[in-house]
């Protein structure tokens, strides 16, 4: 999978390059808006990391240009700007996610992977978390290369937790995904499914773990490297 990093600060570009490469991505690095424009027009990237403060223009403008031109490449925006501005400005302009400097490179890698795991993303068909592999087309879950049998609702829950790996998935979102509006929903239906899913994963020796954020939802974490 090929990524573009648009970052003018050479040391940061270098570090991002190294981190993304060690995560098995092919990485191109450019330092200006012009170079980025050219790169986007030539290569169909799977995702991009875009710094907003560039020497020859504002990254936000570049982002808007791309979206107007119909380029849907998932973009993670990096910014040293205030969180407020970045959230409003960046997401309005078509960014898929943003990170405020200073950031941990591991976080950049995780966010890029999350973008790619979206349905339709380059990693959207085969999801991975720790030693769990989820083939979303075959609906086939493997833990440490052994097939794990899951009930339909359990696998749906796992899919959404894996798509948002490392982030909280609200219980209400899972409810929407699992049940139609007409379905009778018991208040503890989701917790019961999650409980069974968690047990099965532990029994199968999965090293990714489902955590409960009481009152909100659940999140799946990978083992710490």
């Amino acid at each position, binding site marked *: 999978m090929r990524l573009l990093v648009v970052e003018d600060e050479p040391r940061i570009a270098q570090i991002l390059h190294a981190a993304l490469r060690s995560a098995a991505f092919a990485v191109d690095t450019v330092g200006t808006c012009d170079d980025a424009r050219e790169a986007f027009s030539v290569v169909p990237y799977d995702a991009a990391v875009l710094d907003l403060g560039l020497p020859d223009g504002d990254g936000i403008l570049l982002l808007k240009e791309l979206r107007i031109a119909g380029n849907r490449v998932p973009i993670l925006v990096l910014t*040293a700007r205030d969180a*407020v501005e970045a959230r409003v400005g960046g997401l309005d302009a078509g960014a898929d996610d943003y990170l405020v400097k200073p950031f*941990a490179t591991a976080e950049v890698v995780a966010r890029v992977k999350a973008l790619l795991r979206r349905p339709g993303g380059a990693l959207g068909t085969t999801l991975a978390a720790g030693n769990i592999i989820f083939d979303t087309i075959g609906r086939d879950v493997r833990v440490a290369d052994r097939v794990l049998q899951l009930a339909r609702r359990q696998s749906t829950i796992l899919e959404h937790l894996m798509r948002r790996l490392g982030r909280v998935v609200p219980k209400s979102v899972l409810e929407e995904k699992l049940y139609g509006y007409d379905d009778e929903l018991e208040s503890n239906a989701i917790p019961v499914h999650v409980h069974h899913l968690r047990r099965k994963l532990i029994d199968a020796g999965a090293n990714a773990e489902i955590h409960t954020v*009481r*009152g*909100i939802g659940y999140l799946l974490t990978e083992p*710490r490297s």
Partner: protein
Amino acid sequence: MRRRFQSLQFQLALRLALLYVATTAIVLGVLAYRAYETAGSLHDRELSLRAEDLAGSVVRDSAGNPQLDLPPSLVRAYALGAGADIYAIRLAGGRVIAASPPSFADRINGWPAPGEDPSYFRLPGLGESSDTYYGLSIALDSAAGPLWVSVAHAGEAKTLVLSLLWEFGNDLTWIIPGFTVITLAIGVFAIRGGLKPVRELSAMAATIGPHTTSLRLPEKNLPSEIAPLVHAINHAFDRLEKGFAVQREFTANAAHELRTPLAIVTGALDSMDDRGDLANLKRDVARMNRLVEQLLRVARLDAISLDVSDPVDLEGVAREVVSTMAPWVIAQGRAVALAGSDGPVWVSGNEHAITDAIRNVIENAVLYSPGGEEIEVGVGPDGSVAVTDRGPGIPVSDREHVFERFWRGAGLGIEGAGLGLSITKDIMARHAGSVLVEDNPPGGTIVVLSFNLHGS
């Protein structure tokens, strides 16, 4: 005590009181002098009139000899004995034709002839009377030819005057102090009234602080004596505000500029092979990152004036904060939960500031509560957020310090920058809300942030 002496009221009262004492003394002195003078001349006129009366009563008898024929009322007046007025009438030449008492006739023999203008005399002890007489002699015409008339009155003019003065003085004793008190009261009230705007200014000045540098003291309706002072103070505030702005900008810029090099160091450390002290180094850099981030938040908070009037769903904000922080909290080996209200709780405030306030308290709870205990964030329908941990708790003696910038509890690890709770307190103050530190009965701490419900 010194303050009392410096008070305008006291100084005015003191000076006015001195003025009244001095004025009273001078007025009394002048009055006494004038009274004496007036009394003296009255006395002289009285005696002159007496002399004329006496001269008018001298007639010639059938033998042609001049003799005194007083009306009965005057006879009685002159016959009162000791203390009564005395007189002697001589013919031009010296022969006494009438005298009362008769002993006066003996004394007056040999006195020189008086002129047309009265000549005055003093006559000590006459007969059985020990009084001193003061009187006048004058030459007058009468029906019986030219006469020399001498009239005298016992004692000086003083007695009458003294009694008059005494009475007058008695009245003054009451009037002057009363008048003094009334004037002082008017003075004091005038000053009080005049200084009322100053007291209001003081109250207003007391609210001016680092966050309210744009406030200025009103210069309207001030006594003209104070207006220049207030004007000068406002100018001083202008200059201070500029200084503050420069400082804030500097802090914000410095923190902002530190982000890029820190991002480089952080990234470089992340990409290094794990060996030796790398984990420690990463922790140090993480701490530095937090410090810079918080410095920037402080600077940002100092620099902007928050609009805290928006309706904000406290439950939604708390939910967002807990969701965002959950991965980090779990990575620290803790758990976090949202509890309390089921639906939205609308408070007045600024969403981003409230987010910061809650996040800082959760961060603090995570950093300072060891063990895998759950941190609970409870939203109350009264507009409060309670963050409960099961940590060691905060000693009562430290509770007032936890909100100070750069304060950290003794022996509690070194990760925090010591800015988080001070930022939270700032934010709560800007929201006219409150932040309370309480004991969690089973152990640990509850930090309660109370906002104002929207529309209340």
